[in-house]
């Protein structure tokens, strides 16, 4: 992995980047075999429950003829349950919904009926023998695709829950005053990115660990600005981050090209073009 790629925010996790026609990349988190196997078992349990319910209902109503109906519904559920639900519910069966998984095309678009049925039918081949074909295929394909996914051109992604943005988290700064940052100081984007990543992971770390990690970056500023040796490195980085996201010059440096690119499209769509 090159440094540029690392800096541009590409994560090392199992994600798939999709480039939209708007020239923006967004990430999908790919689902590995384990949540998918759990989802599959949940679906099987549901199918078994439906069949059992049908069996009880039909055998009381119709007698012997009901077995034909049961076998027919078994056939339909066996081959069409996943495909039908994935077509109708935008790539989710009941089990997938439970585990927060969704099937999408490898291009990031919703799947269509043909793709849903292809991957549904080919599940049989993935199950040979005892699911090994599918797991091997997931292991060797870069996007965790089983054979059915390869043929249909689909991937299974983990749905992030849509959380409302809570704004920038307030960090309590008790032992440090904002004046210690020189007024001329202008953080560059790489530093802001590193600070943003630290702030995001910070709540999961214990206090000594925060200080330990923050020390590697903070010591440079402590030396540079000749701060007292007992400055809390964690608090220093939080302060730096607060400083950088409220720095007016940073946004104005970056904002301009982005605005220029998007304006014609937006104006055209809203009919604001005068010329």
């Amino acid at each position: 992995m090159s440094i540029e790629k690392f800096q541009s925010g590409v994560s090392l996790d199992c994600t798939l980047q999709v480039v939209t026609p708007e020239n923006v990349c967004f990430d999908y988190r790919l689902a590995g075999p384990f949540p998918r196997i759990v989802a599959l078992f949940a679906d099987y349990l549901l199918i078994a429950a439906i069949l059992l319910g049908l069996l009880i209902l039909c055998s009381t109503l119709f007698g012997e003829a009901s077995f034909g109906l049961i076998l027919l519904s078994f056939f339909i559920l066996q081959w069409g349950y996943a495909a039908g639900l994935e077509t109708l519910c935008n790539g989710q069966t009941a089990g997938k919904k439970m585990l927060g998984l969704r099937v999408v095309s490898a291009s990031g678009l919703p799947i269509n009926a043909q793709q849903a049925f292809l991957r549904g039918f080919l599940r049989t081949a993935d199950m040979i023998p005892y699911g090994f074909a599918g797991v091997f295929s997931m292991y060797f394909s870069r996007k965790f695709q089983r054979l059915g996914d390869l043929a249909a051109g689909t991937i299974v992604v983990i749905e992030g829950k849509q959380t409302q943005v809570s704004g920038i988290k307030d960090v309590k700064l008790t032992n440090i005053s904002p004046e210690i940052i020189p007024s001329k100081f202008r953080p560059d984007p790489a530093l802001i990115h590193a600070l943003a990543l630290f702030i995001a992971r910070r709540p999961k770390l214990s206090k000594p660990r925060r200080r330990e990690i923050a020390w590697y970056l903070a010591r440079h500023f402590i030396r540079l600005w000749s701060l007292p040796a007992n400055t809390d490195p964690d608090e220093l980085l939080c302060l730096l981050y607060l400083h950088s996201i409220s720095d007016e010059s940073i946004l104005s440096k970056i904002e301009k090209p982005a605005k220029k690119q998007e304006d014609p499209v937006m104006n055209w769509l809203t009919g604001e073009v005068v010329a």
Partner: protein
Amino acid sequence: MKISELIESRRADWKELEDDIEWVRKSSRRKLDPDRLASFAKRYRAACSDLSLGISAGFPQETIRYLHQLVADGHAMFYRSSTFRLRTWGKVLFSDVPRRIINDPCTWIAMALFWGLFFGSLLGSSVLDNFSVEVAGESTLAEMESMYSEPIGSSSTMDSRSMMTGFYVFNNAGIGLKCFACGIFLGIGSLFILAFNAIFLGSIFGHMLNAPQAGNFITFVTAHGPFELTAIALSAAAGLRLGWGIVDTNGWERGASLRRRASQAIEIALTATVLFGLAAVIEGNISPTVIPYPFKVMVAALSTLLMIVWFVVPCLVYGQQSSLEISSNET
């Protein structure tokens, strides 16, 4: 403007985009109000530029993650695929699919293999004494003989007929789809299942035609034979089409070749499933009844004629080449 202020100012817009996405997801295509659709487009594209701005300006990570999800959802709704249209499906069903199946060498390979092995083992079991015993086993043959020992239709009831129809769909169409799915292993799985069925059925036919129960046997199998045997061969043809796409890429990248052939293969597999269904209805409701034999022959002749019309007429009307470029015999 400060980053924190910018995020605050954009947040209302993102919330509205969330609502828009939910609105587009829930409403049908025809009911979409064009004005709101235009504002959805505007908000979606604004969110796209917010995301790229956010990445380069170092927005807080949770905001970036939220925007990733928002853009992904918006993208999925904005560029969602077209919905079901009856007219295009009519064209696919009665023009494209039959022509593609007829023009596909896989169909003819599967047909030749099936009928070759079927008649080969039929002949083998008629001529050689041990052939059918070796293939099917003593107990299966004995079971078959006892199954057809009584005249057809003597013990058939309404209930048993509907039960058997369900069973034939479940069993036969299930075998057909399995046969198709196993084609992903370079087509070998399909060919194996096809060959097994051809040899097994052939030797049973050979044995039963020479058994004392031959009359009952023929009376039973005639009516549904054409649909069922064509369906088995087509299932294997579908699997072969699928698996052969990995082997012969025709200049495409291997994965892309597989996906391209897969969409063609599933048409054949679904055709086979429909034929299995028709065969099951006949096998459950006409074959086991006391209806006179000439009528059953007529059913068989009619179903053969139906298939010939469906396969051949589109080729005559619209020409050999399928209009879609995924017809198989381009080089």
